[in-house]
């Protein structure tokens, strides 16, 4: 692949609230190279979560273009976009969003249900992802039997099990205590430095952002400044 992994050009996003049009992103340009680790920071309403959703194909821009891995995701229809998400993006949520009736292993296996892998290979990969996040011994546990930090690590295992091009993390430590948060951030460090994963993380936490290679500060839908660390 030539060029940056993520290319955002003149990205606008507006929401309608009755008759009122609320601009959230206003002509944002951004490039992210493969292997980068970017933290998006900014006050509430600055548009960082909206940008993350747009990068993940969870929402459609009002105007502008997003190219990820050379694919113009605005040109994809709903089904193609879903398939693209399954192949390309790994999502980590603030509230983990694990399915409570499934075991850790079954939760991690979910994205693999969309592949042609047989059940044995799916289980093998899910177990490998859990081993990678240090929860191989919790494979048969259900989410309610895990701590918050462990749940988030299962969420990370689910995000990486498909070997995605891009990891999008929305406040991944926002619901964790400091120790569990540090463990999760250490995992991101390892995934970025050792596995070369490209990570974009929305956070309010300066300690979390300090781990990233770049910090992008957003305010009122525009990129205010960039810190390279």
């Amino acid at each position: 692949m030539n060029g940056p992994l993520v290319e955002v050009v003149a990205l606008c996003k507006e929401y309608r609230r009755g008759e009122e049009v609320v601009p959230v992103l206003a002509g944002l340009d951004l490039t992210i190279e493969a292997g980068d680790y970017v933290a998006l920071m900014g006050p509430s309403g600055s548009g960082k979560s909206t940008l993350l959703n747009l990068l993940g194909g969870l929402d459609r821009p009002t105007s502008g273009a997003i190219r990820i891995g050379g694919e113009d995701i605005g040109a994809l229809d709903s089904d193609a976009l879903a398939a693209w998400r399954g192949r390309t993006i790994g999502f980590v949520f603030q509230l983990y969003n694990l399915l409570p009736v499934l075991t850790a292993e079954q939760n991690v296996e979910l994205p693999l249900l969309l592949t042609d892998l047989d059940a044995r290979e799916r289980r093998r990969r899910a177990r490998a992802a859990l081993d990678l996040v240090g929860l191989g011994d919790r494979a048969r546990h259900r989410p309610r039997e895990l701590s918050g930090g462990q749940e988030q690590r299962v969420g990370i295992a689910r995000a990486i099990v498909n070997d995605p091009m891009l990891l999008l993390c929305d406040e991944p430590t926002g619901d964790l205590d400091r120790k569990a948060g540090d463990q999760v951030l250490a995992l991101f460090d390892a995934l970025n430095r050792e596995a070369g994963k490209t990570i974009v993380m929305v956070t309010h936490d300066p300690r979390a952002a300090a781990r990233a290679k770049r910090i992008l500060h957003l305010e009122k839908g525009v990129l205010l400044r960039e810190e390279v660390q």
Partner: protein
Amino acid sequence: MTGAWRLLPLLRAALQRHRLRLLFTIASITVAFLLFGLLGAVRTALTAGVEIAGRDRLIATQKVSIIQPLPRAYLGRVRQISGVRTVSSLTWFGGIYQDPTKQLVVFAVDANYFDLYTKELLVDPLERSRWLADRTGALVGAGIAARYGWHVGDTVPLQSNIYRRRDGAPSWPVHILGLYHSDSVDTNQIFLHYEYFNESVSFGKDAIGWILIQVADPAMGPRIAAEVDATFANSNAETKTSSEKAVAQSFANQIGDIGKILDFVVTAVFFAMLLVTANTMAQSVRERTAEIAVLKTLGFTDASVLVLVLAESLLITGVGAALGLFLATAATSGLGAALRSFLPHFEIPARAYGIAVLYALGLGLAAGVLPARQAMRLEIVRALRAT
């Protein structure tokens, strides 16, 4: 769309979410299909006569009421009408065996009665010839013979709750000379010779219940029926002649329009089940809003989610229907034996199983379609923001 088999782990997970609610919903559907099966059996039992009625047979009854007698002399005049092949008669005896609670289905019939029902009532030729030769003989159904332990050669004292003997004797001794068998007709009936009955009865002599007419060609039926009725018009006992099927239907209708009553009950039950199942599905989808949003985030398409919710709904109704029909089948087998003397055809007809499958499909789809559509249209960002 994602291959449906890939959704199986998710389907299993969805069903495990609220086991108690799932159990109650399935139990409700089970009861609905149990009721459907049992009512189907009741309908079969009450309309069995209609199903087996011969196309070439007519029945003439008193115009006023089917329980009013007709003069026996009518038989000869009916026989003379062109197109009539055989004429016979059937008279309700009102049989009692041993005590008044043991009421039996006993008819006094003409000797040629069995000529009209050669396909329905199967009698060994030797036994039939013995019966023809002995006026005090009876041909009894294999069912009732087995129930009371009667054998060919036994003499059974029968009483009537209508008639008395002219000689004052309390009962009619009846010699069992043969058994009839049947796949379609109740085998709990007893047939006496009309002549034996007529010569010993204290009142109602030379009167018969119904006239049975076999016609040479079913197409002639309406014309012959009209001619029979015209023959006895303006007499003391006018007749009403109809096809055997019409009489059986009108007899069944005496206890109400069975079909409509049963249809109404079944419709009401299934409508209630639709509400119960739809409510369960709607609740289930509402509770899983975030989970469905996560599935979509992970790459599951809108169509996959639609299929997942519909499959859940269909599975719930399918399991409930299968259990209900299984229980109904078991119940009709058990009850059928107990009710054989009252409702000899108390069984679920084969077509009811087919209809039940269609109902289960319809119920599953109708209950699942709105929640499935809601899940399909769910906006990921909005749903995740709501959690």
